[in-house]
Every structure is written in C-alpha cells, then in structure tokens.
C-alpha cells in the first residue's frame, strides 16, 4: 500500500520540549484495543493533554491556542519504549506530517517512516534554536524540504541526514511490501541455499 508522499512541508509547529517522551505517553496502552489504524488522534498524548475527567489541561502545548501546525518539535529521545506503531498512527491522525527532535528511538523512527511521518533529526543546539524561535513567535513558519534535506527557519538553514533509500521511499510514496514482493524469486533462492 503506498504511503503518503512527503516532499516539502511549510508549517508552523507545536513545541514539546520534554525529553524521553515514550510511546506510552504518546499513546497509552489502554487505547491499543483496536483492530484498525484509524481514529487514534483523539487519544494522542491522552494523559498529558487531558485530566482524568477528560478536561483539557490548559498548559499542554496541544491545548494552547497559540500553537498549531503539522510539525511537532520534541525533546531528545522521542518515541522510546514500546514498539506500538499506534503512536505513529496517532500523530498522523492528529495531523502531524513531521517530527523534529535531536534524537529518536529506533523503532519509532521506522514506524514513522512507514507511515509517511518524517522524523527530522537535528543537533541539540539547533533544536534549541527552533524552540527559541517558536517561543518568540508561535506562528513562525518552518520549511522542511526532503529532496534537499534541509530545514529552513527564516533565513536559517539546517541540513539533515536521512537514509537515501528511505528518502526515495518517502518522496515516491513506496512501501516495503511492494519492494519485497518484487524480490520473491531472490527470497526463494535464499531459502533453498540456506535450507530454511
């Protein structure tokens, strides 16, 4: 199934400076009881966003009226913990297309890429530059250009790294299953040779 293509995104951003935001915080386990991929946005950051009675917590960035946009800017080690892809689904369903952080947990990074959600890794220093810029002007526009691998904040440009194969997949909306289905003969040959 093709994933949604990612080429260029221009948007304001929502800041979430906390570090080690694990996938249990992104999507608590009690909301994993679903058999489809849709509708998780409602539960995104559920226990940080709402109190136990379901009232929005006014200080949480997603509830603050000045912040909006399709980019989440998060503190170091975003997405650690559980392998639940539901965390990536929740971010996408809520409307995010990219997460900028100084460090991503491995499984989360893969899950994000598999759902057309671009994880953009920047230096700790540049992450702070972005946080400060949003702090000064919550409506500040951030441009993410995947083809050129750059983040633009006004005149300021940051070049980010991404695996060239993953980049092509995202730019073209290719998914792994389609790619691997094309290799079935090779996979069969591998099985014969390794006696599996």
């Amino acid at each position, binding site marked *: 199934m093709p994933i949604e293509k990612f080429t260029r995104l221009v948007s304001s951003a929502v800041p979430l400076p906390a570090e080690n935001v694990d996938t249990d915080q992104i999507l608590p386990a009690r909301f994993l009881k679903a058999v489809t991929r849709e509708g998780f946005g409602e539960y995104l950051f559920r226990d940080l966003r709402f109190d*136990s009675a379901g009232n929005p917590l006014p200080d949480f960035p997603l509830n603050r009226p000045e912040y909006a946009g399709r980019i989440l800017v998060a503190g170091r080690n975003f997405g650690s913990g559980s392998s639940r*892809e539901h965390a990536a689904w929740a971010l996408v369903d809520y409307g995010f297309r990219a997460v900028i952080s100084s460090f991503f*947990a*491995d499984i989360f990074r893969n899950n994000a890429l598999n759902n057309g959600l671009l994880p953009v890794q920047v230096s700790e220093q540049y992450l702070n530059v972005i946080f400060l810029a949003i702090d000064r002007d919550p409506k500040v526009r951030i441009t993410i250009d995947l083809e050129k691998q750059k983040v633009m904040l006004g005149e300021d440009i940051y070049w980010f790294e991404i695996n060239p*194969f993953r980049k092509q997949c995202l730019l073209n909306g290719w998914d792994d*299953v389609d*790619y691997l289905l094309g290799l079935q003969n090779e996979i069969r040959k591998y099985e014969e040779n*390794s006696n599996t």
Partner: protein
Amino acid sequence: MKEPKTLFDKIWDSHVVRRIEQGPDVLYIDLHLVHEVTSPQAFAGLAERGLKVFRPCKTVATADHNVPTVNQEQPMTDPLSRKQVDQLTRNTREHGIRFFGPGHPFQGVVHVMGPELGLTQPGMTVVCGDSHTSTHGAFGTVAFGIGTTEVETVLATQCLLQNRPEKMRINLEGKPGIGVTAKDIALYLLSVLSASGATQHFIEYAGETVLTLTMEERMTLCNMSIEMGARGGLIAPDEVTFEYLKGREFSPSEEDWNDRLTGWKKLFTDPGAKFNREYRFDISALDPMITYGTNPGMGIKLTGRIPTPDTVPGNHLNGFKHALQYMGFEPGQPVLGRKIDYVFVGSCTNGRISDLRAFASLVKGRKKAPGVTAWIVPGSQQVEKQARKEGIDRILKEAGFELRQPGCSACLAMNDDKVPPGKYCLSTSNRNFRGRQGPGSRTLLASPLTAAASAVTGVITDPRELM
C-alpha cells in the same frame, strides 16, 4: 586470513538476501512471533493487498497483552479485548498459523512462550511486534521488536528492510553478591548508560559473569536491552544454552541434534572483532537496584538516596524535576522504608519459574503486609503448571498471596490489573513510564527478591535483610 567477525555480524550476514546500495539490507526472518494487539492491522493490510502469509510455518501466535489473569476459562468480558483475540483466532486459522490462544497449554507472554518451547534457537533472526523481543537474544539470536507495518511485511514476504545497527559490547566481570539478580545488573547498566545510551546499537553481553548466568537470567538481561534504546541484546550460546534447549517441544529432534549443535558452536565473536563501543563493568560490589523516576535509566542502589539536582546534568534537569514531582519524591530522600501499595511479579522480564521461586523463597513462612495488593502472574501456562507442581501456589497462599493466570497483566495494564492514580507499585516488569501501569500510577522497578521483601513488610525493603 579471514577478518574477525562479531557474533552479531555472523548471524546478520547469513540472513542477508540482498544488500541495497546506500540502503537497508533485505533480511530474512526465521521466527516471527505474533500477539493480539499489534497484529490485526497487519493481517487486514494483507487482506487489502489480496495476499496470503508467505511462510505460515515460520510464524507462531499467542494471546498475552490484553488477557485477564483470573477466570481465563470464561469468555473475556471486555468486548474490545475479546475482539482482538477473536480476530487473531480467525486470522491464524485462515492463514494456517500455529496459535496458542487462551486456555492452550502453551499460551503465555510471547517472550516467555517462545524460549520455553524451544522455538527460539541459536543463530536465528527473530522478530515480533513487541519491543521486548530482545529477550530472545539470550540464545544467541538477532532478535528485535518491530511495528505493525513491519509485521505485515514479514507476513507477506518473510523479510524486512533493515539498516545494520552499530555494535556495542558490554563485558561483565565479577560474581554478583547474595540478593543481587540479573534484574539488578540490568538496572545498574541502565543507570550508568541511560535510557537512550544504546540507541542504534545491538549489544553483546560477554565476560565471565555472563557465562555463569542461567538461561532465565540471561533472558532478563537481554530483555532490558531495549530500555537502553538498543535494537537488541545477545549472548553467545554455550553449554548452558544447549542444555536448556534439549528436549523442548520445538527443539531439534535427537537425530538432528548433533548437526545443529555443530552449527551453534560456531556462534561466537571472533577474537579481535571490532565493536563501535565497548564497556567493562565489575559487578562483584553491586547492590540490589531500584528505580525512583519515570524512565528505567533513573535507578539507584536500593540502599541509596534519590539524587539531588546538583548531580543531574543541566540538560536533564527539567525531566528530573518532573519525574520526581510525578513520583511524589524529594531529592536526597532514601527509598528504603517508603510505603508501597501494590506489588507486581511477572512480565517477560521476571515472569519465569525462577522468578516465582525467588519470590516464594522469601515470602515462605511470612505474611503479606496488610494494605498491599499483590499480583503474582506467571509468564505462561507452562510456568503456572510448574509452579503448582512445585507447591509454589501453596506457599503463596499460606503467605496471603494468590497465583494468577498468565499474561502481560500489570506490566502495561491493558487488562483489569491497573494500579490506581497516585499509588506506588513495586514491579518486576521493565518500564516505569508515567501511567504505564494505569493512569497516574507510580512504578518502582526492582527484582523479584526485592518485590518479595517489600510485599511482606509493606515498605521498600532490602531482600538481604530477610535472607
């Protein structure tokens, strides 16, 4: 002369179907474990593509994450959980996949079930839609957790596109003291290397200490690798491994055994092989460990004090303060003697028979403290059966505890085993994240021995005092 290779590279290289230039490797998967929570969307994706499972014999399924730990014989009362288990029942039947569902004698927490049945064997690549798949590395496998899209990919093609991780070796030396378990070693490594210290790495645990660990202890150690951010952790197979595997349900038959053994004995890191990072720890002076914060890297000696802000690096200060606030702790406080409300023994980290034996050995002849709610949850039907056979259920009963039925239970609180807001739970599981054991729950991670000592006193207690 051949370039010396790490154990990890030996296994990885023998599973590469194709190398993509500047891209990931196409990696063949030998064993795919599946459970009810992260698989429904993968099977649905397969159906949408009009595909069947490519190699059904290489996938094994069980139900563990959302199952109740009482009255498992009866239909599940939670309709959403029941739907997930029903869906897995249908999906496995349709695709001809082995399924150890509720009530099956092999049902259990997926990472307890695989090894105890001999499904996990040295040299394999093992994946599961669960981060604690790292557990299987104890057998000298490349085992790692994957997301649901990747579950679908493996079902469809028996392969994954994976970037080769970096390699880290952790050498452990010295004999752990009395009351110090594999869990304490894992919590100690986490406290030093942090909850992200091994990200993008695959860890090999080596050194004289590792050689002396039982398979169940090795599983506990490898299980927690993911908590350091590692893709996985593995240990070279040896006589301990081979002995463990002999005669298990899915272990090689007697006639194949010697052939397989010859192959397994080649699974070690060659002298001189290079690692990207290497550490050495002497654990002979280690004390039992406990966590005080909201990630597993926030651990201290059980006899120690909660850190003070001046010892926390500046960039972590905010997280530290929030964690203490969430936990209701003050900097500099000791943890010993603090009241606890709940005790959870179980999970893929510490839900095996040796963990139940350890817990039972300390509560035997004592009584559960009033005011403590305890959930003692075996990791599998087999573990439960063995515990009953050994009379552990009776020891627990006499001490005021109850042996429940197998499942993931309060480790992630998807079933009814939830810790209420603000309550403290001393837990033998693997994560102390905010709300992990129920919204507002406060988790302290420790070993089954520490859990036992604290369960009978009602306060955090050093197990060595009761030994």
